[in-house]
């Protein structure tokens, strides 16, 4: 049986790395006494499958993790009722479990299934030209950036990855954007988008608001429509 868990990463814990999170979850699952399945071999590890990595320093309201449960351990779905609370109690401040669902059919992994993410991006810089530059970026037929992938530099067009983008707030020297960025075939990261906006804007704060999977053209969050347990 596989559980899918949704959680946050907010506040000071935004400075944790993806690897840090993996260790924190391993310990939290043991503390919550969940019968997690372990890999075979010399050093058995719990079978956890994380979704798209979040950059160190970015926050999120919608992170996901799949947990394989030990098939030999009897676990009633009803018994999962208080699991979100139990997991949250075992996690540090800022990492809160907000929903748990049972996946009847495991299906594609989170990394395969998710096609886009919604981001809130806070920039530091002049507010007067922000709207104009955002519009220009959206109007551009292509936006070429060079990316370093494992030491190999490639020229990529990131324009197709910008699915939507608009300015949500302008105040003082702060520009707030909301953007839907694609994750297939390669994830467009908010920092790459900020770089494409060019100077003088710099990233202040980034938060992932949602991750989306596509079902017959409709967008839904990765937890639905499976049996949701203890969703808020």
């Amino acid at each position, binding site marked *: 049986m596989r559980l899918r868990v949704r959680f946050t990463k907010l506040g*000071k814990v935004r*400075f*944790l*790395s993806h690897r840090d999170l993996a260790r924190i979850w*391993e*310990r939290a*699952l043991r503390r919550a006494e969940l019968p997690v399945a372990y890999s075979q071999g010399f050093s058995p590890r719990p079978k956890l499958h994380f979704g798209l990595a979040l950059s160190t*320093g970015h926050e999120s309201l919608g992170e996901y993790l799949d947990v394989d449960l030990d098939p030999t351990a009897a676990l009633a779905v009803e018994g999962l009722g208080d699991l979100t609370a139990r997991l949250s109690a075992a996690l*540090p401040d800022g990492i809160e479990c907000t929903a748990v669902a049972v996946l009847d059919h495991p299906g594609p992994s989170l990394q395969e299934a998710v096609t886009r993410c919604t981001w809130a991006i806070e920039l530091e810089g002049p507010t007067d030209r922000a709207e104009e530059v955002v519009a220009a970026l959206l109007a551009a037929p292509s936006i070429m950036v060079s990316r370093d992938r494992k030491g190999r530099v490639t020229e990529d067009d990131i324009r197709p990855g910008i699915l939507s983008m608009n300015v949500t707030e302008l105040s003082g020297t702060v520009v707030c954007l909301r953007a839907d960025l694609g994750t297939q075939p390669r994830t467009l990261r908010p920092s790459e988008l900020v770089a494409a906006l060019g100077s003088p804007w710099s990233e202040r704060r980034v938060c992932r608001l949602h991750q989306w999977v596509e079902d017959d053209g409709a967008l839904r969050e990765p937890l639905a429509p499976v049996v949701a347990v203890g969703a808020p």
Partner: protein
Amino acid sequence: MLSLWPRLEPLLSRVSKPARYIGCEDGAQRPAHRPGDVSWLLVYPDTYEIGLPNQGLQILYEILNERDDAVAERSYAPWTDLEAELRAAGLPLFSVDNHLPAGDFDVIAFNLSAELTYTNVLNCIDLAGVPVRAADRTDWHPLVAIGGHCTYNPEPLADFVDLVVLGDGEEVVGEITAAIAAARSQGRAAVLRRLAGVTGVYVPGLYESCTGEDGRFAGLRPVDAGIPSQIEKRTVASLADWPYPKQQLVPLTEVVHDRLNVEVFRGCTRGCRFCQAGMITRPVRERPAEQVRTMVTEGLRRTGYDEVALTSLSTADYSGIDEVVADIIGCGDNISVSLPSLRVDAFTVGIAAQIQKARRTGLTFAPEAGTWRMRQVINKLISEDDLYAAVESAFSQGWRRVKLYFLIGLPTETDEDTLGIVELARRCVEIGRNYQRSPSVTVSVGGFVPKPFTPFQWFGQNTVAELQRKVALLRTAAASARGVQLRWHDPRATLVEGILSRGDRRLGPVIESVWRNGGTFQEWSEHFRLDLWLDAMADAGVSVDEIVHRHREEHEALPWDHLSAGLHKDFLWQDWRDALAEVGLPDCRWTPCYDCGACTGYGIEHIVASAVPPAGGSQGTAVPVLLRTAVGV
């Protein structure tokens, strides 16, 4: 006090591993600072990864926060990138708990476990916005304190610290807190005088160097009759009264020794003559087995760790170790136990086999010296047969890699002794071939640094050139020994450890100069700068040879003579003569007392559950033969 967090946050986005600075660990406290509280900032003067697991610091953190007249927070040396950001932004060193400025605490207390961190101590004091020299501090500045093993010779740091704490901290931190609370309205000088009266506390500013008629150093004397002339270390009589840490910190990011740690005993009377930790922590005080079990099971449940280390200076000597280990393994699947320092004999390898059912990759033994003669000199009486039996037992039970720890530059060492190291390793590989296709033996050698309060405190340390010559000898020999890998510690770093270990107050300007020239993080090879140290020594007119390489004389005054670890100086001198005569000394846990002073002087005793030596190896029987192993490290 105002949290610096909003101003720190933007900097953290620009530095490496920012999670080191956020706090938020499970077990972390965010104490409210009540008026009248004595506030302590406990600092480990190296990176968070190294400092967080430090158990001494965690124990004091809990004990202080449990008191109703104290609060304690933690800090670690910021890495060079954050230091540059802090200095550029005009921000000070901060606590990781409430992110408060270090300079706002009443006491900044450093845990000193390694001499090469001394320049970081100065850097942290400076980053706190506090004058680095104690003499320049006013009533408004925090007191700077140091504790930990290095404080048995605090003289090199005497210019920079206000107080030094010797020995176990559990009881004395409360007494220091009370003394500060009682005297602080009368100003800094009054507080320091009062602290000088607390047993275990040394206030360097109240002592001055004396010069004898021959013009040589003649010891330190108190400035007036109201100050004690001898400072005794503190020893808690029983660990059972101190089941700390109760809430071991669980870091959110990577650190060394990331596991539950339970201290099973303190002190060691094996009597290895090079080992300062063993000498200064006597007598042996075992934690009751029942308490160990409770601390392990509750700790695992609370933290979610799947690994527990049973810590001490020689964990296989713990009475009933096999039962305790069996109980822990029985308490859950996938729980692993590590025993960071073990003797080596068939018994010990048996325990290791019990622990490492699946993962038998590497076992570590520490014979420390390559020949029987040399091991008699250092009182590590492992016969060749013991070592080979242990190694055979390991390879035959499925281990493929054995790691052996050795020291070079020991007293009376000849090239035959040095080369004996590779010879031993070669024989171990041979034994391994009977059981494994490609057994491997890694030999790790470190240069020996004589430490205060050991029988070797009089010995002149080998020069860098001599250590390098010995390393070269070993490299040549190891090159033709198949299956033997050689690793060695940089002899240049060993020299600086030597300078700081037995130096005196003349080193103050030396440390300050190295720090001012950017020599921080000297424990890190990429930052280590021997040139800064040698230049500073020359500028200060202090001879390296006099402090490090010269053999000291029986009656000469030593810079730490005014401090006491309980050990009688004549006991140490006799042990030094015995070492030169190649005479070993059995463990006083199971043989009559030698009156070294550690128990007799303080009216305390060993607390050992078993009246007989542990079974199995020759190290437990009439001839104490002992080895340290690290299982699975």
